[in-house]
């Protein structure tokens, strides 16, 4: 088994395994590049209940001498809110104002958002309707290891795999191009490579 054979087979099987992600990242870029205004999605209330929890002091409004709450404390509160609303998995948490804490639980089909109204000691959970455009763009933009859900972590692993796969396809593609016998493909290849690099540099310098 030659080196070139290994390169070709790696290029092929990795491509076949990650094919859905490649198509998804391509197709989902269409609505992102051709953004058009759309009606806001509809959210349906799925839970409303009394809720009380210690809220960390936000860094921006901590009184003199008081230690502002850490993001870990805010995440702990977010997990409490998730549990109270009977939602499991990863989430984002933020405190948009002193009276409210928001949790967003991503889900490609129907994400959930949870609001904790601190003054009213009330928790409200809402689920978004399925929106095809948001489903597709959600697949594109979801990533990162900090969401706190196991399967979100595995998804992030696949995002890394696709990124590394892309770099491997580029490298193996360059090797396969270079190994093609004859001067024609090499000359045309250099032309494509050089013209692409030139266009890229010009656009970057003008942007």
């Amino acid at each position: 088994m030659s080196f070139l054979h290994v390169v070709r087979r790696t290029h092929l099987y990795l491509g076949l395994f990650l094919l859905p992600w490649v198509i998804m990242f391509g197709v989902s870029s269409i609505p992102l590049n051709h953004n058009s205004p759309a009606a806001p999605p509809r959210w349906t209330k799925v839970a409303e209940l009394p809720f009380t929890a210690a809220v960390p002091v936000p860094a921006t409004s901590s009184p003199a001498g008081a230690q502002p709450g850490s993001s870990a404390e805010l995440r702990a509160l977010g997990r409490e809110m998730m549990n109270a609303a009977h939602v499991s998995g990863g989430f984002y948490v933020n405190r948009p104002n002193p009276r409210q804490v928001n949790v967003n639980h991503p889900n490609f089909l129907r994400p959930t958002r949870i609001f904790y109204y601190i003054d009213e000691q009330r928790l409200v959970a809402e689920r978004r309707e399925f929106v095809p455009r948001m489903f597709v763009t959600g697949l594109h933009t979801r990533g990162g290891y900090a969401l706190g859900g196991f399967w979100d972590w595995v998804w992030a692993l696949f995002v890394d795999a696709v990124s590394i796969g892309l770099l491997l396809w580029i490298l193996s593609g360059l090797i396969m191009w270079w190994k093609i016998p004859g001067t024609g493909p090499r000359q045309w290849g250099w032309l494509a490579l050089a013209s692409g690099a030139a266009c890229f540099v010009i656009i970057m310098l003008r942007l």
Partner: protein
Amino acid sequence: MYLALFLTPWMVGYAASTLLMNHEAGRPVVYTKENEQPYSTMFEPGTPPRVAAEQILSDLDLEGTFGVAAPSPDGKLVITRQDIIAPRRITFYPGERRVEIERAKKDAVGFLYRFHRRRGYEPPFAADRAMAVSVDLVIVAMVFWALSGLWMWWEMRATRLWGVACAVAGIGIFVAFALTI
């Protein structure tokens, strides 16, 4: 193959930036003062911030894609003039009749983040249009590579069994994720 060679810089950029974004490697932009100058143009109360910002950028010879925040109570206007390599921040102080121009410190991670997020046909500038066209070209290329790769694989009989196994595993995992998480 030639399309792939042409688009190599874009694909390297998207792969590298995706890795960085997935590991949340981005840091806040650090600006350093570039220039400060008197600016005497005054705007009528109620002038939309985008209109004022466009005028300021034009007067400073800095036309281009920009973002602008709502003015502060004292009328201070902060404009972010997008630039993929080093964005500028222009602050207009109407009370003092001056503008301050700051430029972001160049950094590779920031560049890759901006490159990944730059898209769309809305800005009326040629470079933005060219970028949007190149994004469309990458989209077409990715779908084309996927389909042409499938066809080339099917023509290679010796790889069909393992190829089917890889494709089915990939599709199965992807669908399971898309429907559940």
